[in-house]
């Protein structure tokens, strides 16, 4: 029991060193299979710094002969094909996005005679910038922030003003 406890504590402490991650579901060109893509750091790569791409495939897609090829294409048409390491259903690649911009990630999964293509467009908006990315303006979001902040302040002042009645009501 103590050994199990120590293993658990070790597992928890091992996890303490990881960075934040999230997930994106991509389906293949035939809409038959799905895979989860997530990128460290934070699903929000930094241009000029190495990112790790995890491509987690469904069990039924993978067999002993499965090969995965990753092609990364930037908006100028430059291609990169980082090395992929496969372990079971998980394929991992490391890649450094050169500059900020949009990149097309194409995972080609070849299994026996069949081939499935998973495509995802990744926006890199942190790190080295060659030209400023178009940043759309969201007027509705600005209006929402002003309205909700005003609402919260109003609610707070109303609550403070009626605090004695609120306390009395809570006793009922």
């Amino acid at each position, binding site marked *: 029991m103590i050994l199990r406890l120590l293993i658990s504590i070790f597992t928890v402490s091992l996890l303490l060193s990881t960075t934040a991650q999230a997930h994106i*579901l991509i389906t293949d060109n035939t809409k038959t299979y799905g895979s989860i893509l997530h990128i460290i750091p934070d699903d929000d790569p930094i241009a000029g710094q190495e990112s790790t791409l995890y491509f987690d495939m469904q069990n039924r897609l993978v067999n002993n002969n499965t090969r995965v090829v990753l092609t990364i294409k930037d908006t100028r048409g430059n291609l990169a094909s980082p090395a992929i390491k496969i372990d079971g259903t998980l394929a991992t690649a490391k890649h450094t996005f050169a500059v900020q911009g949009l990149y097309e990630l194409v995972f080609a999964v070849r299994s026996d005679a069949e081939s499935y293509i998973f495509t995802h467009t990744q926006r890199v908006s942190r790190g080295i910038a060659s030209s400023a990315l178009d940043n759309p303006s*969201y007027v509705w979001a600005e209006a929402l922030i002003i309205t909700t902040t005003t609402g919260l302040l109003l609610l707070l002042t109303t609550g403070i003003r009626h605090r004695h009645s609120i306390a009395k009501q809570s006793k009922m």
Partner: protein
Amino acid sequence: MSQTRHYQLLFNSRFYVLLSTLLISLLAIGLLRLQIADDQLYLIRLQQLFGLFCLIYWYIALIISPLGYIIGKQRLRQLEFARRAIGVSAFYFALLHASISLWGQIGGVGQIQHLPALFQWSLIGGSIALGILGVMAATSFDRVISYMTYRKWKMLHRLVYISWFLVVLHVWSVGTHLAYTAIQLVGLLALALLSGLEIYRIATRLNNKLRLGKAELSGLFLTIWAAALILILTIPTVVQNYHSRHADHTKAGHNEARR
């Protein structure tokens, strides 16, 4: 002579909790939209934030009773009164979290079949927890309580512990926030505190029948609490965590490169 119960919305703390919940959710939607240009990343962050809000509200709703048992119900009477609204708020955030995950990130119910098995199991657990929370939110009105009778209502609301357990597993298996060191430690301490307070309440109530001495009662409490903590700490060995698998894989890759 009949007494008239004066009831005004502005004097009710539940009204403030519910309205502030709605405003906070809208504020989060606006703030994140301005900060994140990428739609996919925006949905991810929104989903994560609502999940975190749900956990915080739910935790507060859970801890009020055992905390009140120890420090005195009178001191927490305002929070106790507002608890139902806090629970409904937790459900609201859970619903937003689930809706964004399902329709925003995954792309609809039909896409669930394309998820890896761990995600499917985790979503099932989360969905059951959401369903239970939904039933509790729907029955959190005075009229429903009087229709159901308090005893049956109380029994129904004890399901909260099952749904909380399912949510802990859901968060552990695919949760993003657990990757942060600080969140992991806070999560562990929060679970230890909640279980400690609940077990103290159970042990002292049990003692009304057992009539143990102070030392024996302390021993009983500490033994059950230690067992609960061991159970919490063994979750990582029993339930697979999506991120630890990636960490192991990366580590193995680095080792191979060194060779």
